[in-house]
């Protein structure tokens, strides 16, 4: 964008006022990056084992499990909506593939594929309900959250006779599916899980979509001004449904990881995670009102989550304090973001 050929080579002298610092301050991720550095330094000082390479692998893994979901949740929030059902949808997705494969004695991959369809259907349900009823997404997805929570427990007990699924570890297709969703490598003594690749890939795709595609332009528009967007011909309904499908896709990836990390799924899991995804997105610079934010920011937010949750363990503190830290972090990050944005706009 700096190399403008032809007529625009004559740079407007007023452009010189835009300092690189101002450009940096205008980035939505800035607050979260500053926060991540602070958290890193903090734990590097108070926890001796935090700086070990093996610890880093653990931190990254914790970050990736949140980050995979935080990226599409961030896009959804930029599009002006919430998804409170995202946490339990992960569990639902794992339950569907596990129980389908077991009950049908099918190849595990069949269950994985069926689960993808079912999970996308959950996302589509959220999107359709939202755009049809025009109720706030908070209410719609709160309803889906409760229904999925009940269905997870109810169906699992009905089908498996207990609160967890039967083991599918010895079934056909399990090893190859585990390779895709839950394998790991050891590089220099550091255990790196495949979720890191999923995380990096999803953040990259989300960033590409957001900044370099028409759909991305529409996401910003439906979140920042749905009426204005509609008036210039943006397909608001399709955009919002697409965003919910994105969350559902990531829930499927996370769910399969959950299943193939072990070989059984606890049906009560996932409750509360939806808030952590939202927190990661908000720490990463997403405006709660929509229209502003970034996918990379959500990754930094997830990284802060990983450092905090594991750092407390390495510092040998009582893990009960984790939630306190997370809450404090959320407040600080939001304040910092608001301050940064105000400054960036005030210096115009």
């Amino acid at each position: 964008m700096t190399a403008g050929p032809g007529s625009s080579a004559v740079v407007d002298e007023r452009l010189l006022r835009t300092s690189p610092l101002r450009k940096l301050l205008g980035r939505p991720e800035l607050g979260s990056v500053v926060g991540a550095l602070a958290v890193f330094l903090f734990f590097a000082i108070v926890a001796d084992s935090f700086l070990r390479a093996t610890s880093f692998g653990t931190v990254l893994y914790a970050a990736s499990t949140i980050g995979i979901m935080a990226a599409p949740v961030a896009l959804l929030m930029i599009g002006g909506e919430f998804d409170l059902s995202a946490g339990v949808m992960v569990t639902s997705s794992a339950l569907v593939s596990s129980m389908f494969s077991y009950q049908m004695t099918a190849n595990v991959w069949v269950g994985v594929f069926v689960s993808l369809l079912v999970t996308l259907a959950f996302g589509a349900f959220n999107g359709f309900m939202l755009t049809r009823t025009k109720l706030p997404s908070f209410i719609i997805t709160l309803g889906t959250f409760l229904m999925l929570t009940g269905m997870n427990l109810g169906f699992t007990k009905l089908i498996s006779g207990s609160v967890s699924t039967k083991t599918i570890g010895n079934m056909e297709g399990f090893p190859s599916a585990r390779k895709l969703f839950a394998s790991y490598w050891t590089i220099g003594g550091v255990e790196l899980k495949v979720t890191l690749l999923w995380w990096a890939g999803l953040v990259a795709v989300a960033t590409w979509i957001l900044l370099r595609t028409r759909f991305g332009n529409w996401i910003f528009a439906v979140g920042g001004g749905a009426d204005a967007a509609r008036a210039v011909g943006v397909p608001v309904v399709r955009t919002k449904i697409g965003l919910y499908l994105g969350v559902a896709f990531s829930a499927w990836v996370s769910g399969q990881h959950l299943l193939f990390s072990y070989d059984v799924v606890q049906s009560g899991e996932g409750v509360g995670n939806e808030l952590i995804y939202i927190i990661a997105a908000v720490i990463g610079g997403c405006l709660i009102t929509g229209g502003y934010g970034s996918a990379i920011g959500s990754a930094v937010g997830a990284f802060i989550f990983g450092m905090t949750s594991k750092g407390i363990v390495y510092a040998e503190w009582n893990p009960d304090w984790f939630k306190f830290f997370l809450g404090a972090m959320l407040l600080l990050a939001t304040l910092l973001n608001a301050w940064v944005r105000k400054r960036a706009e005030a210096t115009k």
Partner: protein
Amino acid sequence: MTAPKAQDGPQDTGRQALVELDDVAKYYGNIKALEGVSLEVHAGEISCVLGDNGAGKSTLIKIIAGLHRHDAGRFLIDGEETTLANPRDALDRGIATVYQDLAVVPLMPVWRNFFLGSEPTTGAGPFKRLDVKLMRETTRSALLRMGIDLRDVDQPIGTLSGGERQCVAIARAVHFGAKVLVLDEPTAALGVKQSGVVLKYIAAARDAGLGVVLITHNPHHAYLVGDRFVLLKRGVMAGSHTKESVTLDELTRQMAGGSELEELSHELERAPAPGSGDSV
């Protein structure tokens, strides 16, 4: 209601209107929002719609913009009777609408706003992407052509003044080849100087050959640039004039409620009178 045809001067004999409303009505349930409204929009002319709050101006604009469908009467585009399905449909037929308060998405950069809904892409398949360079450069040059010199097309459009935002929206409509430009109270929230700037761009759009519908409650602004004037009052047409057939004073008097004003002064006179007890 059938008078306007007769009032129109000889100037439009044989000329096809870009958009014509003929005896159009709109009902919201049992509420008459608009009834018997006729309006013509010609290329290179500005048709003004004047009216007070609640006169039906926004309903009229929503019909022309494709947000609402009319319930009665005829809506003609290039002489062909039609019903618009949605705003996209209106845009595809060359009708661009610039709304007073929702013309743009404030947090988005100027260049993203400029192309919103009509983004150019480059590449194919999964690598199909926004042509960001083209978008930035075109935004800059299209704005320059309209005489708007922005220092940075990357700034959020919300940081521009209200007048500048209107101008960007007008430049956008002109750039995308709109034949008809509908402007909803473009000067309502602006100061005198900024209003002047916006009126200048409206005139520029007219000179570029567009048909302009200017919705306003300010007869002074309307008379400065307008060629035809339609007055709305409580959902019905209270008058239809061409520039030759009306003076500013007459327009202002009708707009300010002429007879209603007389009635009001009458009522105000009567108010202090020691009337019957029920008025207290």
